[in-house]
Structure formats: C-alpha cells, structure tokens
C-alpha cells in the first residue's frame, strides 16, 4: 500500500466526514488486512497539511480531531455563499459560556454569584442545545445543583484543541495590596488562563456566597439606622433568596 494511497484516503475521509476525525478513527477506515500503522496516518496528515499550503483550504487540529477548513485569506468571498447572517450571541450568553469554560465544573448559582444577576434559564438551554455545555454531575450540597462543563463540540466550534487554548484570563489584583497598586497605578496583568489549583477557586466562591448573605443582613441594619440619604430612600433594600 503506497503512501499516496494512505494520504488520499486520509484526505477524502476528512473531506467527506463533515466533522473532525481523530487519527485513529481514520486508521480504522482501512481494511483490516491493509491497515497502516498510526504513525503512517499521522505522516499522511502532516503531508496533507504541507500540500494545502498556499491553497484555499487548510488542515486544522481541534479537540475532536482533524478537519479541513477554508483558509482565512479566502473566507470573506466564501462567506457570501450563505444569505443568512451567522448567529450572534448575547453578552449574557457569552459571559455565562465564559464562566463555564474557565471555571468548570460550575453551578448556575455560582455563575450568578460572579455575574451579579440571575441567569436566564433560556441561556443554559441554548448552550446545551448547541452542545457547547452539558451537565456532568451534581454538586453535593442542598438542592444538588447541576454541575456544568463545556464539551468538545464547544472547543471544535471555536477552533480550539483544548481548554488551554482559551484566551488568557485576566489576573485578579490582590485587594490587600491596594495601597501598593495605587502607587504604581497597577495595570491588569495577564495570568495563566488555567488555575492549576481549581480547588482554591471553588473555595473562594463558597466564601463569597457567605459574604453576600452578610451584606444582605447588614443592609437591613443600615436601612433602619442610616440618616436620610437620597440613595437609601430610592433604593429600599429587599431581601433576596
């Protein structure tokens, strides 16, 4: 079996599949008696990527495998093939998606704590229908809230190989170094997108929930005692569940 036959099968399979194909799945397309080594399939993929250079298409590896896609340089004329505009996503949806992507696994309540507003259930439903987000379990707390995580489909859609390829998340400046930060007029510094110690982050979130409750209680005290303040008048504190 010649190298060019292997490469032709790989090329045709990638183009026919309509979805990303992992190398081992391509390998299994070959008849049992002529099945090439995985290394040969990988070599064919590499050779294809070279073949595609300077052409209208390119080979790209995403989370679920390899796919052939239109090269950026010609994407504009090609996009005219379709009349309808691509779907636009609301900020609320994108922020929710970002929280799931960077903080997974995460519950809806935890998303709401960080965003400061309720999450519209339609948003979660849309994310699930698009198969970008799925429920991977339940947090073992009262109510057993669903734990949300992103899917490989999410990574594929955004052309990513893994979560590590997500844009770097801005660093949280330490409140305790407030004075120092002021002196230097501190700017937001880029930090690693992935916190190696996910557990710490979870803990911080739990602490935060507690503090929000404290604040609510504090509000009631202030509401009773505070001297006339236009702000207090117009915004009577309300209990929130």
């Amino acid at each position, binding site marked *: 079996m010649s190298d060019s036959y292997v490469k032709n099968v790989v090329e*045709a399979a990638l*183009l*026919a599949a*309509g979805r990303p194909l992992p190398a081992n799945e391509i390998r299994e397309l070959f008849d049992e*008696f002529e099945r090439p080594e995985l290394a040969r399939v990988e070599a064919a993929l590499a050779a294809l990527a070279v073949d595609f250079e300077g052409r209208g*298409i390119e080979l790209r590896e995403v989370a679920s495998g390899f*796919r052939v*896609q*239109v090269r*950026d340089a010609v*994407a504009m004329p*090609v*996009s005219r093939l379709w009349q309808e505009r*691509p779907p636009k996503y609301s*900020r*609320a949806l*994108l*922020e929710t*998606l*970002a*929280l799931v*992507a960077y903080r997974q696994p995460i519950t809806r309540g935890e998303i709401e704590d*960080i*965003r*400061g*507003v*309720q999450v519209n259930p339609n948003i979660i439903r849309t994310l699930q229908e698009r198969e970008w987000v799925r429920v991977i379990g339940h947090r073992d707390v009262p109510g057993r809230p669903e734990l949300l995580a992103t899917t490989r489909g999410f990574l*594929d*859609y*955004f*052309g990513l190989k893994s979560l590590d390829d*997500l*844009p770097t998340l*801005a*660093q*949280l400046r330490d*409140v*305790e*170094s*407030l*004075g120092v930060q*002021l002196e230097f*007029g*501190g700017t937001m510094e880029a930090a690693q997108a992935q916190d190696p110690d996910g557990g710490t982050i979870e803990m911080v979130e739990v602490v*935060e929930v507690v*503090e929000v409750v404290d*604040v609510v209680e*504090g*509000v009631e005290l*202030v509401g009773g005692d*505070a001297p006339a*303040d*236009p*702000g207090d008048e*117009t*915004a*009577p*504190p*309300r209990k*929130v569940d």
Partner: protein
Amino acid sequence: MNDPTQTPADAAIAAEILAEVPAAAGADALPKPEQHEMPFAMVDGEPFTVMPRDLYIPPQALQVFLEAFEGPLDLLLYLIRRQNLDILDIPIAEITRQYLEYIDLMQDMELELAGEYLLMAAMLAEIKSRMLLPRPGAELQEEDDPRAELVRRLQEYERFKKAAEDIDQLKRLERDTFLAQAELVERKVVTVLPEVALKEMLLAFKDVIQRAAMFASHQVSRERLSVRQRMSEIIERLQGTEFVGFSSLFRVEEGRMGVTVTFIAILELVREGLLELVQADTFAPLHVRGAQPLAAVPAANDDSAESAAS
C-alpha cells in the same frame, strides 16, 4: 411603552447618558477617558459637557442604553471605567450617587429592574456608611476596607466580562470558519464483521458440551487439541495424492512430543475411518492413504485466509 415624564434633573442625566450611547454601542469608538466627565460632543474642537436643556432625547435610545447593562456589577464597572477610576480605589460616595441616579432613571423608564440592582444599591449605601465611621487607629488595615469585597467582586466580574469578549473574538464556525466538504457520491456497502471474544466462544462450547453430556467420556475430555489440529493437517496433506509415506508425516524437529501428537492423530484418523494404513509387503515401508478420494478443496480459500491474517 409610556413616555417618561422628564424632570429637568432627569434630562441632565439623560443627556449624559445619551452622550454615552454611541460609545456603549461600539466599544472601539470609545475615546480615551479623561479624569473629568466626557464631553457629549465636540464642536469646533470645543468640548460640550452640558446638554442643552431643551434637547429631546428619544426614550427608545435611553432604554436601549439602560438595558445594555448585564446587571449591577456591569453598571458599576461602566461608571468606574467611564471616569477612568482605579477599581481598587473607588470613590464610593460619588459612585453611589451616580449609580442611584441610573437606578432612578431606570425606574422612571419603567424598565423591569432586577432585584439585584436594588440589592447593590443597599450594599453601596452600607459601604458608604461604614467608611464614614470613625476609624479605630491611624492605619487602615486593608482587609478592614469596607470596599474590599465589592472591589473583589467587580474585578472578578470584569475578568469574565473580558473573557466573554475574548471568546466572542475567537474564530468560530458559521461566522469566520467554514468546513471543507467533498461529496461521497455513492456510499459503498461495507460489511462489517462482528467481533467475537474468545471467552464468548468458550462459554458457548461449555454450554453445548454440557447439553450433550460429552463429559461422560473421560477420554474425550482429556483430549489434546493439537491432536485434532494435526488430524486436520494430515487430511489436508493427503489431498490430491494417492499415498503418502507414513514416515514423511513425522517431522523430527518437532521433538518427541510432536511426533507423539502426529502418531495419535494418525491412529485417531484410522479409528474414525478417515485414513488407511497400507503396507505392500511385510517389512515394506508403511504408506498412508485417505480412506476415500478426498474432494478437491479450492486452494485459493486457504491462501486468502492466510493472507488476510498476515
């Protein structure tokens, strides 16, 4: 939607908001914020910071602007960023005043105001009052700063707001990336053969043997399978030939065990009437003959089987 009854004070805020509308609509258009309030217009290079009182502000524009906020944290961030304030040192009194003005306006506009906005208003008021309290010592401990929690939440929200913008910028399918696809005109029918695990076959065999009570025969149960295999080999060997020398069936290199297996196989074949031992004369070499002319088996069958396995 009801037209709001605008008081002069509202009009001033509304004018301020209106000046921000384009900036909010397209972040790229946002000029570098300065410490003072941004002008809503530039005329002949002169900034105008006060909206003419009689200017009509379309309520729809206001509503779109106000509805653009993703919640109280988003609104607060907007107020802070608009004035280029450091998030770590928010002038709480001033920000609270501005925040409440927006809340008032939203209520005037009869926008559906989420409870979170009011909760934040209360939180701001509480922070403000705590900051007015006399401090125990000269040094203010950072962790005692009443703003600390708010600052932390604002920062936390802001980084995910930014992350959402970053994700929106990623090249994505449908909008920026298009899959290349070729037509497979005629799908060939591919027959996939079922997989069988050895254990499955052994269990099946055990069942059938138990049903047939084959274990009743001790001899059968002790039988070496290599004998069976050798029997098949010998029958094949005899294919298409009349006689085979008895001794030629043995291969010395197989050792004593192999020779024994072959010998038992021959005896078993003779017993089953599949083989005849022939001796032309006393002391003449023994020959082996199939008990019947063996049917020709297509050799191709065997060849393909072996090549498929290799």
